């Protein structure tokens, strides 16, 4: 069953089209990553799903029901980007307040607050005012409040923003644990490396349009490109490799070997062993999510100068 579902979702602000007919599906227990540049419409999409912003047309369903209704919001957790907690609260009193809004019973609330603050490493500071917290601590608190009522779906907008590397790993572990428990996670993030590490599927949104969608493993698979390395001082016989039908080029201390369609790397391995060379490195080169993202965005926007690309071209 699709937990999150949109069909031809459109949102306009006057003449500006923030979403141009976005359709997507997220299945139960998935970690789904939504990628896109600033202003691509990621946050708008999430806000429509939560009822914070109203759609112009199309359909948005959450847990099989129209998105944004009060009963559905009870089953959803949300951490917005650039969230601002009221600083007059302590971590405990804030979660208590949100727990009340979520109708979590008193005893369970107390138990869950301590449990959640323990989970994000803030139990020792739970009675401190939020204004004394660092950005990373506030982010951890944001994760805690999103998980407080054990929601079935969680929307996380840049959850690791401002969090140190150890904290990031903890958050990734929490997400994996939640996935293991069957919770669906919808993740908006600019940190493509992290998305790649944790998400099952991703979609790329560009100027309100969905330009790519699929499983990460499928989207980033590189067919027939390997990196080969030999023991120090040894040289790969490139002419013989080329005669086997491989395309070969030097890549720093390694060789990049590209296979033709239907070809297998085994012939190269046999050649190396037959020449008495010692194989030290052999890995299939995969396209990173960042490569895929940049390629997709460029393809969707041909001819547009991006500072990053300009500088690369200049160098």
């Amino acid at each position: 069953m699709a937990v999150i579902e949109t069909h031809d979702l459109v949102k306009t602000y006057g003449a500006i089209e923030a979403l141009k007919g976005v359709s997507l599906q997220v299945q139960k227990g998935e970690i789904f990553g939504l990628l896109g540049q600033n202003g691509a419409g990621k946050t708008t999409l999430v806000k429509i799903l939560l009822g914070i912003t109203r759609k112009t047309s199309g359909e948005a369903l959450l847990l099989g029901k129209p998105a944004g209704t009060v009963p559905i919001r009870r089953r959803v957790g949300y951490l917005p980007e650039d969230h601002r907690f009221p600083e007059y609260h302590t971590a405990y009193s804030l979660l208590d307040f949100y727990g009340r809004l979520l109708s979590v019973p008193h005893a369970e609330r107390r138990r869950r607050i301590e449990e959640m603050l323990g989970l994000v490493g803030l139990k020792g500071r739970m009675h401190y005012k939020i204004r004394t917290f660092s950005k990373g601590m506030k982010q951890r608190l944001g994760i805690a409040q999103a998980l407080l009522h054990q929601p079935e779906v969680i929307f996380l907008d840049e959850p690791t923003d401002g969090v140190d590397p150890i904290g990031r790993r903890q958050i990734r572990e929490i997400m994996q644990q939640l996935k293991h428990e069957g919770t669906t996670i919808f993740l908006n993030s600019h940190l493509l490396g992290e998305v790649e590490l944790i998400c099952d599927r991703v979609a790329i949104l560009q100027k309100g349009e969905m330009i790519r969608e699929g499983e990460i493993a499928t989207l980033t698979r590189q067919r027939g490109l390997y990196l080969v390395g030999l023991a120090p001082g040894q040289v790969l016989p490139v002419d013989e490799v080329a005669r086997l039908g491989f395309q070969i080029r030097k890549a720093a201390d390694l060789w990049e070997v590209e296979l033709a369609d239907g070809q297998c790397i085994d012939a190269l391995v046999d050649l190396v062993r037959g020449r008495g060379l010692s194989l030290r490195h052999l890995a299939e080169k995969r396209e990173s999510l960042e490569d895929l993202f940049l390629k997709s965005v460029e393809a969707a926007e041909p001819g547009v100068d991006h500072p990053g690309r300009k500088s690369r071209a200049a160098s």
Partner: protein
Amino acid sequence: MKYLGILKDSLREALDTKVFYFMLALSSLLILVVASLSFRPVSVEEEARVLTGTVNWGSSFMPPGQRVTWEIRDFTQTNEDAPPWERNYGFTLVVQLSADRSQGGANHPYGDARFIRDAFRQSFFFLDNVKVEEQKDSTPRELRYRFSSQGAKVSTIREWPHEATVLFLVPLKIFHSPLAGQVFFIEDFLVNTAGAAVALLMSTVITAFFIPNMLRKGTVDLLLAKPIHRTSLLIWKYIGGLLFMFLNVVFVVVGIWLVLGWRSNLWGTGFLWTIPILTFQFALFYAVSTLFGVWTRSPIVAILMASAFWLLLFVAGLGYRWIDTSRRGLKDVQGMEAFAEEAEKQGKSTAPEQTKLPDWAYRTADAVHFVLPRVKDMDSLTSRLITADLLPPDNPLRKQAEKQYTSFSWTESIAVTAVYIVVLLGLACWRFAVEDY
């Protein structure tokens, strides 16, 4: 449960502001000052000596040829075991002039017979059958007046003049007035007027931040993602602001009422009506603040608009009272009686037709008064409640207050104001419900 959470959140927000503690300190200080008061009934002899002392002090600033000295002699009183209002009093006032009466001494302001009679009648307004007669043994340099009274116009200790002592040891020797009048001054002026203005203003400032803070980007998203209707969220946030004001008013009013009752032994409950009335008045201003808070998300705009609305109603209320007064003539207006009397002595009429404005002025004033919230009327009605509570029905002050406020009605004042609150909140809720955040 969720609604209690919002109320608790609003209180927590208010408690976090420094202005709140300043307000609390101010309220506590006022309660402490009132608690330090004590009241003592003054005797007629004391009252007479206060009057002579005041005149002698005033006379010391006159040119030497015009100076006079007042002195009380041969003070007598009957029924010494009876309450002071059941006694008859008599004494002689000796006025020593610095120049012979035949040489212009009678022109001394404090030596003038009419002035002396008026001064004594006014000072001893609570006594009955007051007579001030010049005696035959007066000389050109020394005038003698015999003062006598039989019975009193008052019949309870609360109407009898008292001397207040503040901060436990500073007696206010020249401010003798009936106990009920002093309590009325504290309850009506210090708390219901000046205190209320400060409380309304400070509460408006403190609570004006509630709604814009809630609507800040990053904060509102967290709230709107929770399972609560937007209208409920806003209304309960609004109630949270009202609760803050209510608790403040309860603290001040009940505090003052308790300490004042303890110090004066006057336990009238009319003053306690200040609590709901003031909270209701604040509900109106806070509704304005809420509407502009939702519309602009700016606490400054919310404060300015609520304050401007307050000023508008204050001016409209004063204006209406002035126009309404002109319709009724000067004699019926509190504080204008002496002026009317003086005008009549000079042959000028103070009847309504003499002070009347053109008809269109009354029609316009009535129309504006009808459509605007009646905050000022509610102030007056509360004053009447306090007066009625402290003074007996035949007391002149109470009669005057009742006469003045006959044109105001609780039902109308509350109904029109309530309609405003509902409309303003309705607009705020509509805006909040349709807005994308």
